[in-house]
């Protein structure tokens, strides 16, 4: 196995000195090769992650493996794929064979067989982070978005993103998938890492625009008629995420003028402002509701903003409307529970908070609210349990930078 690195990195056009400020393109073959090589590197040079391969190799099979390896080294990919296919048929418990087969197939764009080969590998090596990540990238290409997100995240949890460029590739795909699956705020959080590091390109800007506009699409799926909206939104949001709030403010004002009735534009600006200036965010959410009165998320954020002003009575109608429209939205149940507590209906408030906890058991805000609610209602032990849970959840997310 010692020569694998040399072989792999010697026979392709690897471009390690490419400008780090350009993000990966999901369509670009060199980047696909780059993904492959990085993951391969991790797969074969971090043995601590991988239990020792268990497949027994018969003496006559050594010839087949040698031929497959030679074909791969000579960049004769079709023949290498054929030989590795024969090798794993002969010995299905040979994990390295499945890895080479899957990764080579991924490199040629044969995503379905690549995915299947990697599944075989994962059956043999269940803690193979890079294999999960690469299978996730295959599933991304085949349109199995939910599985892709799960595999990429699992791969990351097993260490597939421990190297900077690897992390960039996987996080970018994870954010694309979050957007495609409707988890827009998670996507924006991931894109903020790219923006803070000054990484940019038109595809990333479009991807940020899609997450900001809450459109469950991939950049490649944006129609011509929406491209200017998506890229202008992405550009404004990118500026904000990169820390240039003054320039972002100008870009958003321009955006509001160009697209005065487009939903989610004001919501996006409000969402971005909220973390540092909830007072400035509140009018944006209220403006959003004028454009899109059925936007339950805008109702939630308006209610939350009003609760921060200790205006529970004003928050209540927004919270009620959000919970009516989206009863399964934990944040809607949360703001309704909070608003009811603030307006004196502690008992009903607790019911909604408990509903929110049922929907999303690890939501810190829900546990914080429940701790207070139980304490106010004299349920001392329940309050204590919620306090302990809240402390545990808060520890796992790390300290905020504005330490007092």
């Amino acid at each position, binding site marked *: 196995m010692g020569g694998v690195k040399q072989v792999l990195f010697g026979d392709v056009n690897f471009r390690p000195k490419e400008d780090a400020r350009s993000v990966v393109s999901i369509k670009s073959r060199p980047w696909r090769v780059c993904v492959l090589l990085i993951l391969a590197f991790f797969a074969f040079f971090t043995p601590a992650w991988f239990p020792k391969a268990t497949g027994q190799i018969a003496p006559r099979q050594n010839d087949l493996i040698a031929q497959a390896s030679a074909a791969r080294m000579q960049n004769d990919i079709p023949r290498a794929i054929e030989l590795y296919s024969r090798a794993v048929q002969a010995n299905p418990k040979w994990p390295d064979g499945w890895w080479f087969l899957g990764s080579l197939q991924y490199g040629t764009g044969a995503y379905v067989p690549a995915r299947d080969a990697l599944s075989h590998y994962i059956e043999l090596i269940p803690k193979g982070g890079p294999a999960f990540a690469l299978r996730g990238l295959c599933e991304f290409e085949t349109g199995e978005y939910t599985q892709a997100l799960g595999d990429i995240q699992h791969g990351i949890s097993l260490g597939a993103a421990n190297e900077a460029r690897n992390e960039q590739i996987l996080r970018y795909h994870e954010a694309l998938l979050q957007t495609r699956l409707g988890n827009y705020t998670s996507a924006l959080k991931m894109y903020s890492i790219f923006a803070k590091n000054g990484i940019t390109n038109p595809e990333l800007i479009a991807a940020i625009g899609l997450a900001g506009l809450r459109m469950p699409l991939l950049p490649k799926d944006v129609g011509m008629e929406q491209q200017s909206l998506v890229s202008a939104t992405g550009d404004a949001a990118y500026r904000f995420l990169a820390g240039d709030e003054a320039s972002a403010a100008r870009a958003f004002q321009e955006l509001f003028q160009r697209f005065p009735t487009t939903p989610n534009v004001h919501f996006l600006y409000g969402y971005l402002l909220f973390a540092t200036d909830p007072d400035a965010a509140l009018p944006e959410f209220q403006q959003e509701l004028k454009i899109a009165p059925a936007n339950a998320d805008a109702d939630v954020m308006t209610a939350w903003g009003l609760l921060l002003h200790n205006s529970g009575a004003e928050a209540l109608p927004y919270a009620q409307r959000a919970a009516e429209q989206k009863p399964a939205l934990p944040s809607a149940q949360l703001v309704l529970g909070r608003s009811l507590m603030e307006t004196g209906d502690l008992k009903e408030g607790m019911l909604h908070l408990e509903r929110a906890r049922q929907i999303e058991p690890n939501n810190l805000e829900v546990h914080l609210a429940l701790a207070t609610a139980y304490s106010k209602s004299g349920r001392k032990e329940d309050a204590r349990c919620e306090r302990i849970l809240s402390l545990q959840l808060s520890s796992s997310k790390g300290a*905020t930078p504005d330490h007092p």
Partner: protein
Amino acid sequence: MNESFLSSFRAARAPRLTTLRLFLVLVLLDVPLDGVHLVAQQAQTNAASSCARCHAAQAGPQPDTPMGRGMQWPDANPLFKSHPQLSFRKGPYTYTVETKGNQTLYSVTDGTRTISLPIQWSFGKGGQTWLFERDGNLYESMVSYYPSIDGLEITTGDSVLTPQNLDEAVGRKLRKTEPKDCFGCHSTGAVSMGKLDLEKLEPGVTCEHCHAGANAHMVASFQGEAYGTAPPDLKGLSSEDISTFCGQCHRTWEMVVRSNWRGEINVRFQPYRLANSKCFDGTDPRISCIACHDPHKDLVREDSFYDAKCLACHASRDESANLSAHTVAHRDAKPCTVASASCVSCHMPKVKLPNGLMTFHDHEIRIVKPGAPYPD
């Protein structure tokens, strides 16, 4: 408890009194209007003294408490009179705080260049940090005065900063919304409807700060309409609500957990520490901020003062003789097997902040085991 009632208390940080009405009050009080600054300086004392006509026990001592003097104008700051020249050196930078007449200059030099700025606001009564304006931005001084060393040291929380040049060494530029928090807690009337307006502030925590509507009530009382205009009585709040109320400035349990401020630094945030105590009960009035502390008076520093507060729940049969019948009837917690005096010295140990310059009693009431780490 009606929660809208609580909301009206919380709105206290948003002042109800307009500048015009403040002037009206001052005219009624026969305050000489020889300059807005002087008027504003005197407003706190006069408003409080006016409140003291009816509420002497509260409004009388309150203006001189650490909260009452939570912020001071530089020309009314006793520290600058008693310490006209303070200096401190950290690395290549030397800081001086020099008072001449009514002006106090905050300066920092690297030996070749010096930046001097007038101190505009002093935060704190004993320990002090200063705020000043530079190029349209507000800055917190890089150094603060600490009574424990009777001198300057790096401001708490700023020791992690490593200034790369003289401009950075001056101080920490406040984040966008930070001034609202600073002035919102250390002064009265500076924040209205979420907006900061420094023209309207009164230094320190005045009656109006906690009792929203107090100034209007005072005006009404001069017109013979005292009854029916009084602000809501805070004593009606539950212990949990009191913690939330005081925690608006002393930090609530939720704020600290949400921000994950861990370690000894959070010993300053008493509502958070108290809520983590095993004995804390949000509905029991025997364990709340105001069960032990009267916010209108200076903090009592004798440990023995608090014994009765602890014994309200933890009294043994022998100790019951000195307690009221009501307390005896309701004592329901285990008595201490070691002592019945100076409870806080063991169960609320003193904890130093990481910079070693300030010490606080830990409000997480507990049985402290030798060598046990700080339960953060």
